[in-house]
Every structure is written in structure tokens, then in C-alpha cells.
């Protein structure tokens, strides 16, 4: 059992390392991905902060929005990771990996970590842009460490979810359709761009079980308000959800090759 865990962790690391190497060979993707959060902050955020329509508990709207956009860009990276499973299945890479003596869980965690690394690169871009827009952030060594943990766990959860969807739908076309359909509701039914308290009751229920809300909540405490009371709970929810989803995913996605 202990050996299995060590093996899983070391092989997850190997697979994640290769993903990062791919990214370094061709970093254009990172730059094109940076555009969306910049538009949200620079245009949507700037415009809405002028009208002061959304209660933001004494912080500027741009401050309120930054953790939401950070969460959004991490989740949008992760939610399309299932596509790589389908592409790897079509090319044969997945079959080959499944025939190596690699624990199924390591193949899932490898993907999760690499989605997390992409998410972190988004975070760096958003932080730099926030600096340009003069959005005041609460940045300390500890808050950055917290941001790291939440991004890795959040990216992990949505990567796992995405891999499960991929192993059910099995084709690129259907996956793209479903990806589009679920990302928007996930984003709007969370505390990313407005507080949960202003939502209708039924939507509040949805927002409260949406893992995206826990990411936003944790990040908001870390980099805006400095209020960490909720943080351990947010991290616990994300960690448990990610663990459960990685086990389900490891069980389901090898079926995609059939």
C-alpha cells in the first residue's frame, strides 16, 4: 500500500514534468490564454466598477472581481483537459501509457498537476495585470502559498471532472459541446462576479455546492480581505472533492480506449 502510494506520486510527477516540458517547447498557448482574463478585468471589471451596482463589502469592484477572474481562468484551463484524453486516445498515446506499469491514479494526478501548473501561469499574468490596473491586493508569502494550494486543488477537481465527462462522451465533438454548456453555468452560479447573497434562493443553493465558489471564497480571503476564517474549510472541501473525483476518474477513464 505504502509502495503503491510512493509509486503513484513519483509517476504523477514524471507525467506532469513531461506536460510542463511540452508547454515550454511551445509557450504560445499561455499567451493566448491570457487574453480572456485581461478582457474580463480590463473591460467588464472597469465598466461595472463605475456603476457601483454590486455590494462588495467596502472593497472596490475590481478588487472583488480579481479572485473571481483568477478562479475562472484556472477552471477554464482545467475543464477542457478531458479533451487531451480523447486526443491521446485517438493518437494511441493513451493506450501506450495504459500498457505501462503505471498506476491509473498516477495518470489522473499527472494531468491534474499539469493543469495546476497552467493555472499558476495564469495567476502570474493576472497578478501582473492587477498591478498595472492598480488593484490593491493583499500579497504576503503566506497568502501566495495559499493561492498555490487553492489553484492546484481547484485545477485538480475540474480536471478530474473533465476526464470523467470525456470517458462518458468519448468523442471530441460531443466533449466540446458539453464543455461549453457546463462552463458558463458553473461560472455564473458562483461568487466569482457577484456575491452569493444577491442571488435568488435556488441559485444560492447551487452556488453553495459549486466547488468554484469555494475557490473564489478562499482566494478572496487570501488576496483581498485577509480574512482567513473560512480558508481551512474551503481547502478541506476542495481537497476532499478532488480526492473523490480522482478516484472515480482513475476508475472510469481507461474505458475510453474500448
Amino acid at each position, binding site marked *: 500500500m505504502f509502495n503503491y502510494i510512493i509509486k503513484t506520486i513519483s*509517476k504523477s510527477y*514524471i507525467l506532469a514534468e*513531461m506536460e510542463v516540458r511540452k508547454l515550454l517547447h*511551445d509557450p504560445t498557448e499561455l499567451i493566448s490564454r491570457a487574453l480572456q482574463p485581461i478582457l474580463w478585468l480590463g473591460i467588464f471589471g472597469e465598466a461595472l466598477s463605475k456603476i457601483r451596482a454590486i455590494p462588495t463589502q467596502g472593497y472596490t469592484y475590481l478588487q472583488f472581481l480579481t479572485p473571481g477572474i483568477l478562479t475562472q481562468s484556472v477552471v477554464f484551463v482545467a475543464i477542457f483537459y478531458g479533451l487531451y484524453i480523447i486526443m491521446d486516445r485517438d493518437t*494511441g498515446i493513451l493506450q*501506450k501509457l495504459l*500498457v505501462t*506499469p503505471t498506476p491509473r491514479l498516477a495518470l489522473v494526478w499527472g494531468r491534474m498537476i499539469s493543469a495546476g501548473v497552467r493555472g499558476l501561469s495564469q495567476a502570474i499574468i493576472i497578478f501582473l495585470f492587477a498591478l498595472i490596473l492598480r488593484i490593491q491586493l493583499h500579497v504576503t508569502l503566506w497568502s501566495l502559498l495559499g493561492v498555490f494550494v487553492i489553484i492546484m486543488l481547484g485545477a485538480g477537481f475540474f480536471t478530474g471532472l473533465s476526464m470523467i465527462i470525456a470517458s462518458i462522451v468519448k468523442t471530441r465533438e460531443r466533449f466540446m459541446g458539453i464543455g461549453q454548456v457546463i462552463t458558463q453555468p458553473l461560472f455564473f452560479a458562483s461568487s466569482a462576479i457577484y456575491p452569493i447573497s444577491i442571488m435568488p434562493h435556488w441559485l444560492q443553493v447551487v452556488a453553495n455546492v459549486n466547488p468554484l465558489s469555494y475557490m473564489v471564497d478562499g482566494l478572496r480571503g487570501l488576496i483581498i480581505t485577509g480574512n482567513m476564517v473560512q480558508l481551512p474549510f474551503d481547502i478541506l472541501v476542495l481537497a476532499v472533492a478532488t480526492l473523490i473525483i480522482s478516484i472515480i476518474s482513475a476508475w472510469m477513464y*481507461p474505458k475510453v480506449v474500448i
Partner: protein
Amino acid sequence: MSDIIDVKNLTKRFGDFTAVDNISFGVMPQEIFAFLGPNGAGKSVTIKMLITLLKPTSGQAAVDGYDVVTHSADVRNAIGYVPQSISVDGTLTAYENLMLMARLYEVPRKERKTRIKEVLDFLGLGDHADSLVRTFSGGMIRKMEIGQAMLHRPHVLFLDEPTTGLDPIARQNVWQRVLELRKTFGITIFFSTQYMEEADLVADRVAIMNQGKIAVIGTVAELKAKTGKPDASLDDAFIYFTGNQLETSGNFREIRRARKTEQRLH
């Protein structure tokens, strides 16, 4: 000597459809064994069961002495597998592709670099170690894949249509390496192919599968003799044992995939 691949009453059903229907056969150590049959005959499903990607509905299969269901981890360590479609990562270098496999197969840290160098030299790719694989030609890509599958010195190498989409020179080149592999390391080779002349040229024995069953098994000469025609080719034998299904077989997905592989290899 006992068989290195030992299949007994192997069956795989998907719902009502029986893809592999109670087949039994054996492959001897160091043999080059060709697996033929029209698309949809059950070749791929059989290979997937042998390499532990698919669980049989009933029956047994053992590779290198290990049962594919109860000892799948041992089987995975004992085999190398080259899928039909392209399975190297074009966005990594040749060296990185090999290093990934060396580490996943737990080649000891001290030996990894020497083995990768050995493999690259063996395949004649020594000068391309640090090039991205997407710049490679079709033949080089296939050789890379064989290289990835031999790093851990497997006892059995499974090749699923290894030369589909390659030009004749690349095909010859790939087979040359595979034959050398057997000579140098004593590896057993199990391959499927659409090209009869290849099976004719390199295989010690051939099995032809049709509609989930093994239609015939034996040396190429034996198969030809069984058709009862004087100077029959292996093509003739294939048609004789499969009932002339070449033209009508193959579903959309398989054909699309084969075409795609061809396009990408060119």
C-alpha cells in the same frame, strides 16, 4: 518449450455481439507471429486482451507465463506495445519521449541514459535526439515507437499494424530493425498487418482471424497448401479462409482512423 503466449478458449462479448469467439492458440518463444484478418474480425480486441487493456468475458490468456487478468502488472512489465496510430508525442523531443517511457517502466536511474543512447543508435536516430518528434518522417516516427517499446527489454513485443501508411522504403527499414531486435535480444514478436506480403516475408507462423474465430493457423507454406491451388499466394489464402470479405469490411471509425494515420505519417 512452453508457449510464451498461451490463449485458451478466449471470448469477448460486447452485449449481444461476440467480438472474439472462443479462440485458442499459442506462440512460441522468439517466434515472429503474424495476426491477419479483415477489419472487424476481432484482431484488435484479441490484442487488447493480451496487453491487459480489455478484460476477457471468459477463457484465459497468459503472456510470458503470467495470466493477463490476475497478473496484469507482471504482463505489463514483460511486454512492449506499439499501437496502430501514432503514439509518440510530437511536442516532445526524441530524447524526452524515450526518457518518459524509461521512467514509467522503471529502468534503473543509472542505466536510463545509456539505454536511451543505445536505442537511438540502434534505430539510426542518434543525431536527432534533441529534435521535436513532429519534425520526423513517418518511418522515423515508427522507429521511435519501437524504441519506446524496447527500452525496458520486454520479452514480447506487440505491434498493431506497424507499417500502415508507410512508404516501401520505410516499411523495409522498420522490419529490418524488428528482425534485428529478435536476433539481438531474443524478443518474441506478435504483429497484426493488412499487408499479406509482409507476413509472407517475415513471419514464422500466421493466424488468420475471421468473424471472431481463428480461421486457420500455421506456417505460410502450410496455409498456401491448404487452399489446394497450385502456386497460391498468401493473398489467395487470405481470401480462401475469410470468404472474400476484404471489400465490404471495415466500419467508418476504423477507416477514418487508418486514413488519418496515413495522412499524418506522410
